[in-house]
């Protein structure tokens, strides 16, 4: 497994997404109101909308394209929509955020 440094915890705004290109992946990084950080593929299963720009509520993000609701933890689209995005493990060490591939 490979760990890639992407940001410092403090540099991630709360309840706003950030996108980062890692290898061939476009990844959306979310720092939730609880401080927990999740990383998922930055592409909605519906029509590829940029999830990193969605409104975040709890651990869910609403895609800015057509308002699909995606769980940032499990990557699943919430009912009534169906689909899922890839999730990435996030590691935090010394206030540094790593995404694992």
């Amino acid at each position, binding site marked *: 497994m490979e760990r*890639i440094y992407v940001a410092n915890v403090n540099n991630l705004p709360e309840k706003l997404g*950030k996108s980062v290109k*890692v290898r061939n992946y476009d990844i959306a990084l979310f720092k939730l109101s609880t401080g927990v950080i999740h990383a998922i593929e930055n592409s909605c299963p519906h029509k590829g909308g940029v999830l990193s720009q969605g409104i975040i509520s709890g651990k869910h993000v609403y895609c800015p394209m057509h308002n699909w609701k995606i769980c940032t933890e499990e990557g699943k689209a919430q009912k009534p929509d169906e689909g899922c995005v890839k999730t990435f493990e996030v590691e935090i060490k010394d206030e540094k955020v790593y995404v694992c591939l």
Partner: protein
Amino acid sequence: MKKKKLVLVGNGMAGVRCIEEILKIDSDGFEITIFGREPYPNYNRILLSTVLQGDTSIDDITINELEWYEQHNIQLYTGETVVEIDKERKQVYTDKDRQIEYDELILATGSLPFMLPLPGADKEGVTAFRDIQDCQTMIESAQQYRKAVVIGGGLLGLEAARGLLNLGMEVDVVHICEHLMERQLDPTASKMLQKELEAQGMNFLLNKQTEEIFGSRRVEGLLFKDGSKIEADLVVMAVGIRPNVQLAKNNGIQVNRGIVVNDYMQTDCPNIYAVGECAEHREIVYGLVAPLYEQGKILAEKVCGVESKKYEGSVVSTQLKVSGVDVFSAGDFLDNHDTNSIKVYDDFEGIYKKVVFRDDKVAGAVLFGDIGEGPKLLNMINDRTDISNLSKVAILQDHSGGESSKSAALEMVNSEVICGCNGVTKGEICGAIVENGLTTVDQVKDNTNASRSCGGCKPLVQDLLEYTLGDEFDQSEIKEAVCGCTTLSREEVIEEIKSKNLKFVKEIMNVLGWKNEEGCSKCRPALNYYLGMLYPSDYEDEQESRFVNDRLHANIQKDGTYSVVPRMYGGVTNVTDLRKIADVAEKYDVPMIKLTGGQRIDLLGIKKEDLPKVWADLDMPSGYAYGKALRTVKTCVGSQFCRFGTQDSTQLGIDLEKKFERLNTPHKVKMSVSACPRNCAESGIKDVGIVGVDGGFEIYVGGNGGTHLRAGDLLCTVKKEKEVIETTAAFLQYYRETATYLERTSKWIERIGLENIREVLFDEENKKQLVARIEEALAHTKDPWEEIVKNQEIQEKLFRNLETQTSVRA
């Protein structure tokens, strides 16, 4: 967690409804067993008479199908009677030697028909009228015999009599009193009913007391106390019911007339409850379905351990159809020394209405023939409405006038109860119809429980359906919640924000008990807008509650790039601006340059991280092509060049755009100014459209050229440009303050009405205040592009992507 064992004795309407209520609260907390003496699933006993009358089958009156029991993992034993309760070991025993443990035990044993202890009451051909078996006995008798006698002139007796008439028998009804249904009707209504039923073929023997039922093996006739006799092949005893308390009594549970319960339906034994017709609460045993369902709800809360209301007893109302005649009664409907009453008696139509008053309140009512006002009167009784300021006669005159054919249901307010049996309000029914797209009474029944029991409210439900689905219906009458996170409407939320002085989106959601702690994509931007509108000077816009376009001040495209539209006031440009736009397009390799419908230039396909640089290079104000704000003011050429132009439309357009740019509004606002009625700027389909005419301007509002194509309404005609700007200011502020977030002016106008808007705007004082408030809001706006260009922190937070640097092998 281990499930609690819940046993219900009695598979009837009250008990099973209580189980439904329990499942609603806690669908998984109990292992449920139900015992029923009859060999059927829970059926609607109120509709038994329809089975007798032969127009429905048992299946039709079944409330809970066997599949329902299966679906909820309920073990149902039909045709099996619980005979003993071991309170020590918490077990019940049945007549089939079954032994079941319980943690909670509900007794819903209902009633037994009261059989008069007359000589000969045990003869063949004597039956009660209480269950499906009794119906079958009557149906079989009708095939062989001719002459039926019903003892009892109450509701049950009359229903039996009607059924027997339908089955082709001759029917005498014997009643001990002078008046039929004396417990539900006053003497006048009672006589009207008798007349109607006699016309249908019933024969009445009133003031008669039976002495003996005679015959050899089978009944042959009745002998009365006064010595007279009649023939009979079938005798139906329908003189009343008594609570079935035997099981409770035998097992040491306190019993009076019924099983005695407290305000939480608890008996005097721990973990044993009683509900329904078998229960006696504050010395009253109820026999109608509405109170029993109320009890079931309270018991369910108790059993599930949720904080519950007390049962405080019920005001009983009866709404019945007796042999095709609608009858309603409630409260104290008999005249007394301390009451006054109003009566309407229409012998032609067979309508009688009486409302009884005590101390300026409605104490009771009887309605015969037309029972439309029943629910309204019941609400007045329950709410103890003070009617001292009402014209008493008007209480009944609303609908009885020949001209008004409107259903009483339409006149009711949303909180009034339509289905008395199940306590379903008008608001709940209309809400369910709209939300779930219901189109039939059956769907309403399944969805809300309305009309599921006695069915008496079906006509009202039908009226509500027609009304709600019809053109006249205004959906705004139904309270519309802000979103699924709350049940509060926009108005209620705004009221709370003001009264509690709430200042943050999070605070609102927290204080007002949002179901989703952090809201959703619908409410968060709305609350953010409302706060900004209410506190223009000190509310700090919340970035994370804004839709991406409003947050990044650019329009997101399908590929995640953005479009940039700079201001071009009134659609007028110049070489400097055009040159700058061309340079920027070249520098950033803009894939598409397009003219918009709002007379400006759109640069499409710009990367998010380039946006601040593009804006810096353009050095032009934001065109707000992405925002819930004033977009553009489209103009025609006007009097500066056009040979038809009566007014300087371009200049007025520029002035309007400069005046109102940057203003946040509930939804986008498009404006235009045409210089003459040829209307080249399409002022008829704008939120605010100005048309220059000789000597003045027409102001059209609420036009829309998009999804809700709508021609604007002429708000007014004014003489001067200054008045155009002032009227527009007041109009926009009124829209900002009263529209729901994401409601365009076209919808808003239809909701609140043009007349309403006129009244507000044309009141000088109001207008002045609206203008003052919009000026305050405008004073606090800043060009967002300029702000972002200057602010590295925002650029970092919102526009910059993360860069990957080193990777670490794990």
